């Protein structure tokens, strides 16, 4: 590889700090909410819906904390909402994907919270009868006036409507920021990674199910339930296999149809092999875990290692490829980057813990 790059790239090769890495993990919150909505609509996996919803809201609600730390003028971050570049004008032709997704996030979050409140409304009413003080007031608000089973049936219908509405908004987040990389940057690896949005979508399901299994394992270690674990393992296995296959397919596309892109993408190819290996291992472990359920911990950890590697490769390593395609920079991670990376995830976990105190993480039967 030659060593030709633009001088401004050398000043700051890693413009999007690894905070973006944490941010993309938080996108899995959108996929947990998609799973939750689909489960609610199909009537399957009902026991898992509360845990999925709470985990999903926990991560999705703090999603924008990731890029906030990446902004060089965060004091003006509100402008994304108050002055979004959505409609093309003469001076500002085009639509900003970042602005569009920010609005989509807001809508999706409001819908997700509405969905959660509706599904928990009757529970909240019952809880309000057994507690006192501030908690009683909170539960009364959360009950949305659903005080009888008849009203809850109506709330369930409304929740189904909200679940349908949530899906397109959350799906847009499931493929973001892959769509941003492919459409609105001139990084040769990102632009050449044509399968990135679909790979990203599948990958977010892998992280989502891995997170679910991790939380479920530590919460129900002594009594893992087949009707919860098996469907989740099936989704996880399908996701892992899909990401491994799509990653291999992308490499094949480069080699056979675009050798110049394959040459440019050379710095990211070694870790693509690691991703394929780890996700295939996760796939096989998922099959084993269907017989030995305690193995879900291993499935979750291996899958997370695979997806962490994948995100690092396509966000950090790919970013280090020069726009000329003829140079590869060294990663210089300065300051408190690890803390900055972990902080948004920790914030998501904190929100989840708070929600798990307020709401139950499973339902025994419909409406309870």
């Amino acid at each position: 590889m030659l060593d030709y790059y633009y001088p401004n790239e050398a000043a700051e090769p890693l413009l999007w700090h690894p905070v973006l890495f944490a941010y993309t993990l938080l996108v899995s919150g959108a996929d947990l909410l998609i799973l939750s909505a689909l489960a609610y609509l199909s009537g399957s996996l009902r026991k898992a819906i509360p845990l999925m919803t709470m985990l999903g809201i926990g991560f999705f609600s703090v999603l924008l904390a990731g890029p906030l730390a990446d902004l060089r003028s965060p004091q003006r971050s509100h402008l994304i909402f108050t002055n979004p570049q959505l409609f093309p004008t003469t001076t500002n032709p085009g639509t900003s994907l970042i602005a569009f997704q920010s609005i989509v996030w807001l809508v999706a979050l409001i819908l997700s919270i509405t969905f959660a409140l509706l599904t928990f409304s009757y529970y909240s009413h019952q809880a309000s009868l057994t507690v006192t003080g501030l908690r009683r007031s909170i539960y009364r608000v959360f009950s949305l006036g659903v005080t009888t089973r008849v009203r809850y049936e109506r709330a369930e219908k409304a929740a189904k409507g909200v679940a349908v509405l949530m899906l397109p908004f959350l799906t847009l987040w499931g493929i973001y920021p892959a769509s941003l990389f492919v459409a609105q940057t001139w990084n040769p690896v990102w632009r050449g990674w044509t399968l990135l949005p679909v790979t990203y979508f599948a990958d977010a399901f892998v992280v989502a199910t891995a997170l679910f299994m991790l939380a479920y394992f530590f919460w129900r270690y002594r009594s893992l339930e087949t009707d919860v674990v098996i469907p989740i393992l099936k989704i996880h296995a399908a996701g892992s296999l899909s990401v491994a296959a799509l990653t291999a397919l992308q490499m094949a596309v480069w080699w056979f149809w675009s050798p110049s892109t394959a040459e440019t993408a050379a710095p990211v190819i070694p870790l693509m092999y690691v991703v394929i290996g780890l996700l295939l291992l996760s796939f096989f472990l998922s099959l084993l875990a269907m017989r030995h359920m305690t193995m879900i911990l291993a499935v979750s950890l291996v899958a997370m290692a695979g997806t962490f590697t994948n995100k690092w490769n396509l966000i950090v390593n790919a970013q280090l490829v020069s726009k000329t395609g003829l140079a590869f920079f060294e990663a210089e991670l300065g300051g408190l980057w690890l803390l900055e990376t972990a902080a948004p995830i920790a914030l998501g976990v904190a929100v989840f813990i708070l929600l798990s105190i307020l709401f139950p993480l499973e339902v025994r039967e419909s409406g309870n």
Partner: protein
Amino acid sequence: MEDTSRREFLKGVATLLVAPTLTAASSRTGKRYAMLMDVDKCFGCMACVVACAAENNVPLGSFRTWIEHVVKPDGTHIFVPKQCNHCDDPPCVPPCPTGATYRTPDGLVLVNDELCIGCGACVKSCPYGARYINPVKGVADKCTFCDHRLREGLLPACVEACPSGARIFGPLHEENELSATVNSRPVQVLKPQTGAEPQIYYLSLPDEVNR
């Protein structure tokens, strides 16, 4: 009577204050500024780079304009000045989430510091590596064609500093040296495959250095 005279006085003051701005703005209306780089004339003295840095307070390590030095296989040394191409279809404008990056009617692509949040989306979307994040201001920064000098009727600092006349600047659709050269001689633009319609034209740019 007193009211009328006060109103007239205020009108007069307002006219005096606004008139110079209006004149400068109207003199630029309908223009399309562009630049021509004659690669044969550039000998890599860096006067333009220094003039630009001094004029615009460019931070160390970043560049609004720079010169690439290429040695061809036959041993010929070539110097290619580069900067923001002020594209007609600028890829850096749509990604900006707050509309901070915009295109003026006379074709300049500029950044409104008051709106820029420093997300770097425009930096990543520029195919020419012409943008950077200004570490002092925390906003995206790039060549402005010395917009502040144009308003005063002056040339961009880099053009004025070039000792060999390798940089020619002016409105593209008026009769001048720039338009005459662009219309009569074979000129190239950088990375035409991007579809950005760059407005920095090159004379004698070898294909192998167009990257």
